[in-house]
């Protein structure tokens, strides 16, 4: 597989000695959906800015499609698409005008642009709304339009910064579907950032966990979950029976702890293991009094790979740092 993005020892230090990105290295292969996972202020947006030529590199090297972002910014710009964190669609233009304007700026010949725009609008289900002013769109519609505005010039790589930030659960799932479609049907390599673990889980082939400018862990969502230790299944039985050996023998169970009639079972792959566990319990004529299953959350991932809690102060401090950077950059 050819490498579409190559990053070597990349650092970005803003004025005031703020290390936004601290010596990170990673590769993104062609066709991959690569996720950058981390809390606010971790350095995700800065990384995107460096890769999309919006911010200059302090040290290290980054290439996109073989073009060095510092030496050949215009070649990089021609070959990438971007879906920024903020909604940057022009409200006072019609949906189709926004997309056609992008086509003009990327010098897509008019006839080709018209065809592409029609297809793209169909892809995200905005055909009927295309001739309406964007100010009449819902948040989800705007995001969908935003997705395709970055695609009229058929870029090989698409950068998406928090594509579902602030959207409700249903809309988020719809956007996920479109992102998958772009990745698979249009064969676009996608680099996205998110602070939702479930988003990285649902979409990404590879995810890197970033905190305070450093990559703490990297791998497929499955591999990352296994670092955390997977889901925790808590079962309370009606009787105190020793099932430790049985639970330990099941494929996908990593650790079993017993406390009276309650078992805490750490699972690698919950989907496969839970039915086997339940059938086993019932097969032994035992009844379950209570059962709960907790999925690994960002808190747990974070705790595991950074060794510290993902507390509110952390959020606040990170948010402040970020605001500071935004104010500085304007």
């Amino acid at each position: 597989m050819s490498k579409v993005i190559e990053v070597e020892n990349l650092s970005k230090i803003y004025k005031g000695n703020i290390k936004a990105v601290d010596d990170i290295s990673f590769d993104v292969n062609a066709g991959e959906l690569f996720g950058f996972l981390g809390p606010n202020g971790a350095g995700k947006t800065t990384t995107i800015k460096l890769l999309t030529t919006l911010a200059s590199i302090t040290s290290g090297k980054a290439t996109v499609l073989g073009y060095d972002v510092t030496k050949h910014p215009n070649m990089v710009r021609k070959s990438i698409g971007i879906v920024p964190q903020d909604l940057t669609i022009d409200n006072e233009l019609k949906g189709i005008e926004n997309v056609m304007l992008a086509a003009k700026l990327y010098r897509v010949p008019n006839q080709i642009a018209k065809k592409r725009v029609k297809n793209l609008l169909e892809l995200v289900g905005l055909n009927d709304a295309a001739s309406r002013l964007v100010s009449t769109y819902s948040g989800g519609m705007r995001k969908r339009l935003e997705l395709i505005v970055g695609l009229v010039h058929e870029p090989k790589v698409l950068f998406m910064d928090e594509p579902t930030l602030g959207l409700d659960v249903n809309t988020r799932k719809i956007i996920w579907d479109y992102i998958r479609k772009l990745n698979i049907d249009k064969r676009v390599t996608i680099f996205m950032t998110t602070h939702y673990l479930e988003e990285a889980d649902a979409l990404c082939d590879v995810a890197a966990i970033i905190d305070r400018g450093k990559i703490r862990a990297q791998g497929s969502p499955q591999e990352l979950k296994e670092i955390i230790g997977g889901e925790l299944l808590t079962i309370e039985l009606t009787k105190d029976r020793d099932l430790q050996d049985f639970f330990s023998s099941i494929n996908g169970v990593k650790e079993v702890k017993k406390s009276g009639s309650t078992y805490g079972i750490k699972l690698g792959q919950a989907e496969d293991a839970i039915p086997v566990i339940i059938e086993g319990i019932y097969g032994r004529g035992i009844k379950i009094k209570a059962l709960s299953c907790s999925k690994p959350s960002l808190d747990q991932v974070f705790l595991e790979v950074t060794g510290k809690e993902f507390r509110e102060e952390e959020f606040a401090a990170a948010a402040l740092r970020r605001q500071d950077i935004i104010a500085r950059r304007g």
Partner: protein
Amino acid sequence: MLTETWALTVRELKKWIRTPATVFIALFQPIVWLALFGSAFNPTNLIPVSIGPTNLTPEVLAQIRQSILSQTFGNAPNYITYLTGGILSLLLLFTSAFSGGSLVLDRRFGYLNKLLVSPIPRASIFLSRVFATVVKGMIPSLIVFFVALSIPDGLKLDPSFSLLDGLLLFLTLFLLSLGFSSLFTAIAIRMTKWESLVAVVNLLNLPLLFSSSALLPVTSMPDWLQAIAKINPISKAADVTRTLIVQGSVDLSSMMFDMTYLIAFAAILTIAGGIASVIALRTE
């Protein structure tokens, strides 16, 4: 560069036309100014018709008054005629002052970043605002010109005023607008807040206006102010348009210096503003 500049200029103009209130105000405001300055604030009324018990006959008094007026306001038959060129210059100054406004908003809403990650020449971001603003100023100025002509006791053109004079008049206004739009766009290129822009515009607008011959003749000013007024491009534009209106282009040579001055003003500010913008929009 032309393709991108044109595409972005069209974006600005579409947004302008789609907000009829601003278009309406752009037309309405200078007409109100004409009416207000031209009537209520009419300085010719300050010259008395009679001066109490005197040996002078009313005929002599009228002659004196007329001679004071023509010495002060040139050969303008009324104050509105004197004022129209000034008001048109003023209109273009005021519309140009906010030429950077959409840039500030684009920066705030992230649209500018989207432009910056696209492979467009940076100068097209600057030029599109400048050209759009020039159009947004020139269209109302044309309408105001015809309104001033049509109101009773309004603008009275010299009988020799030709189509060529009309073209020269609007060329003058175009140059003024181009220069100021470039200046104010360049000022706004790094701004993040609308409030800062309003503050700068307020800081510059009225001093630029009152240190010019747009509303009153330079001769009515103290020496130090006259010195400033003489190099103020608004004075140049007001003087040229006024001369064209009052006497036509009989004396082209007297206008040559002012026109050259305005061409230089527009060219220098457009080029300097363009270069400053390209530098300001470089990757940090």
